[in-house]
């Protein structure tokens, strides 16, 4: 057997995959053979490292050197320099933006310093397509010990004491959920994994399935044993081809090793997992809608009760948990509830994975202990706002959440604090916005998403959100009135109180939270007919300063609607009625004579 001295880990998450990481891996493999190093160097494709901003990522071990933005052409130099000559390739190392120093070890990068990876523990560490690497990392140990102890209620107690809460958004205690399902006797029950990640910008579930699929399989089997289910189903969106591919490989390998199937570990417990594909409807993340979609019905929610724990898939007791929730379960069982409950805040234990996106320097996937502040996440891990701009707001919880302003930057992040601040945890999307974002437009963006994704079953959501979207449209076009703002507030309250499912009940949140925190901006749109951020096109006015205009005619020639008039070498003028506010003149002017009002 080869006695490897070096491991080259190449990120194979969707982001890096799209930037040719498969080609990089292939090149490494080829070069290693050419240089006759195949017995010294192991080339491994892994899941996501999280630092998507600088992908593709290549990590060298044992010295833990972290190379960023590697191209297939760099492979030769890395092998030649790093492995053969033992010198780091400086130009590919991470450059710390503050100190301008190259950091070779990822642990010393601001992005990783504050992170604690529990759910993502194996992402970027093991080969997700190789069950043996998972087993070497204590994989299936939790399942084995749970089966050996043969005390399902005891295992549920462990989860309850650990304080694990659902990571899909609502934060329902996982142990309690399992217990409720366990209590309902039936000939068949189902353990369901919700992998219908729908929040715009969130991709932690996909990354876990791509980087560590076995942890989800193991946790589902543990859950199946606890609630008394012999069947597991993963509801995954068909838009996640790589996650599906890796999950399929993992399920096949688990069956081959006897870790799924009949009489697991020689006990009476049998469990197997099947996949169900979703077509990517946001509402199917709601558990009753998800169950209907799996049954082949329309993906529409139904009123609870009956809860799925009583009447779920095919009318049998079913339990639905999110991918990230499952990823925590094996670790809790291996390390004990005392360890897990020592991390986090009083009511939110453990860690949470966030997908950092928007106007932030380090876009990527991070996992931090509950109770970390937004400031730490945005400025220390995220590296601050792009292009030195000013922070304006951070949107958490996707279309069900809200926007938080500067005054919440030092609030410790947990389920309850986010709700108290007018947003929610959601699945963990975190979109950072700078001063150039118009909050009315942001609210409109989320509302339009809801209008498109509403299943249409209940009228508050179907009609109410449509009306709200129309009012917002009116405001961004400069036709809003103060009465419209009142109407928005009223509609929002009615929808919140009367919609059937979670999607509808939370859909007005983006509007309400932006109205709470940015009321002045709404008023500016309505009363002054101005967009303070300069985003709303209809409220923009391009004006030529006659002092600065040289009459070069560059703008007039570029204007697609012929709205600019003037004689050569004389100041020009814009006909505001004809202007379509495309901004072409603004870009063309070499004398800074055109300004936006």
């Amino acid at each position, binding site marked *: 057997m080869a*006695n*490897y*001295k*070096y*491991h080259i*880990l190449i990120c194979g998450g969707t982001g890096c995959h799209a930037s040719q990481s498969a080609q990089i891996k292939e090149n490494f493999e080829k070069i290693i053979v050419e240089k006759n190093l195949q017995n010294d160097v192991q080339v491994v494709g892994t899941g996501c490292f999280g630092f998507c901003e600088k992908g593709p990522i290549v*990590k060298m*071990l*044992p*010295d*833990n050197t972290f190379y960023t933005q590697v191209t297939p052409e760099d492979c030769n130099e890395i092998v030649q320099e790093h*492995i*053969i*000559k*033992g*010198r780091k390739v400086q130009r590919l190392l991470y450059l710390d933006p503050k100190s301008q*120093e190259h950091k070779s*070890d990822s*642990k010393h990068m601001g992005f990783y310093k504050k992170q604690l990876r529990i759910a993502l523990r194996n992402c970027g*560490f*093991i080969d997700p397509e190789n069950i*043996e*690497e998972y*087993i*070497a*990392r*204590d*994989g*299936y*140990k939790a399942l*084995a*010990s749970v*089966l*050996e102890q043969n005390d399902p209620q005891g295992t549920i107690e462990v989860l309850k004491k650990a304080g694990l809460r659902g990571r899909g958004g609502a934060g329902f205690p996982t142990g309690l959920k399992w217990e409720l399902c366990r209590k309902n006797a039936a000939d068949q029950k189902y353990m369901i994994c919700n992998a219908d990640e729908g929040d715009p910008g969130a991709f932690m579930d996909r990354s876990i399935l791509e980087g560590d699929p076995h942890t989800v399989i193991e946790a589902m089997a543990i859950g199946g044993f606890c609630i008394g289910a012999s069947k597991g189903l993963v509801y995954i969106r068909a838009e996640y081809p790589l996650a599906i591919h890796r999950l399929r490989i993992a399920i096949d390998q688990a069956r*081959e*090793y*006897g*870790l799924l199937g009949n009489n697991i*570990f*020689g006990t009476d417990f049998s469990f197997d997992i099947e996949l169900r594909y979703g077509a990517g409807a946001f509402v199917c993340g709601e558990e009753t809608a998800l169950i209907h979609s799996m049954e082949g019905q329309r993906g529409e929610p139904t009123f609870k009760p009956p809860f799925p724990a009583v009447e779920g898939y095919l009318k049998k007791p079913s339990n639905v948990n999110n991918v990230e929730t499952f990823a925590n379960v094996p670790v809790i069982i291996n390390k004990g509830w005392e360890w897990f409950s020592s991390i986090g805040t009083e009511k939110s234990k453990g860690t949470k994975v966030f997908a950092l996106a928007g106007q932030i320097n380090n876009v990527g996937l991070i996992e931090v202990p509950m109770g970390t502040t937004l400031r730490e996440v945005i400025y220390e891990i995220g590296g601050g706002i792009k292009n030195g701009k000013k922070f304006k707001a951070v949107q958490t919880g996707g279309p069900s959440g809200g926007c938080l302003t500067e005054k919440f930057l030092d609030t410790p992040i947990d389920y309850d604090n986010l709700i108290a601040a007018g947003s929610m945890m959601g699945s963990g999307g975190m979109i950072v916005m700078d001063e150039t974002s118009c909050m009315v437009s942001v609210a409109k963006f989320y509302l339009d998403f809801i209008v498109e994704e509403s299943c249409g079953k209940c009228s508050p959501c179907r009609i109410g959100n449509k009306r709200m979207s129309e009012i917002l449209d009116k405001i961004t076009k400069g036709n809003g009135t103060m009465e419209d703002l009142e109407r928005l507030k009223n509609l929002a309250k009615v929808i919140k109180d009367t919609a059937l499912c979670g999607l509808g009940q939370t859909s007005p949140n983006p509007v309400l939270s932006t109205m709470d925190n940015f009321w002045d901006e709404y008023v500016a749109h309505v009363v002054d007919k101005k967009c303070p951020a300069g985003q709303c096109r209809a409220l923009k006015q391009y004006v030529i300063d006659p002092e600065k205009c040289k009459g070069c005619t560059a703008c007039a020639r570029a204007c697609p609607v012929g709205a600019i008039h003037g004689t050569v070498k004389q100041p020009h003028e814009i006909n505001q009625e004809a202007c379509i506010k495309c901004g072409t003149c603004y870009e063309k002017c070499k004398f800074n004579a055109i300004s936006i009002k």
Partner: protein
Amino acid sequence: MEKIKSLADLKAKREQLQSNLKLREMGDNVDNMIQVKVAMATCGIASGAKQVMETIINECNTRKLPVVVTQTGCMGYCYAEPTVEVKKPGQEPVVFGHITPAKATELVEKYIAGNELIEGIIPVNYEKIDK
């Protein structure tokens, strides 16, 4: 594939597989490891540095020592090849010259595992410009 039928099976399998990932786990904690660098330029390889590196890795593995072994380029002591640099956490690196596989075993046993210096130390005669 033989199915895993019991907790004991799983444990045996895990123990057998764990060594494959040891290298990666060490990398997670490289600052607290003893770092050994073997000079593997042409002169080093010609004098047997490959066998030396092999020996050090094997010896450290059998003794289960927390050691990260990497290769490096020419250290400039071509007269004393093969040369090996050992850096213990929080200490200055020490360079040993004329290391044969037999000497390598001694190095692991006495200096790396214990803290006893062996013959062949090359005194530091340069300053690093490391940042």
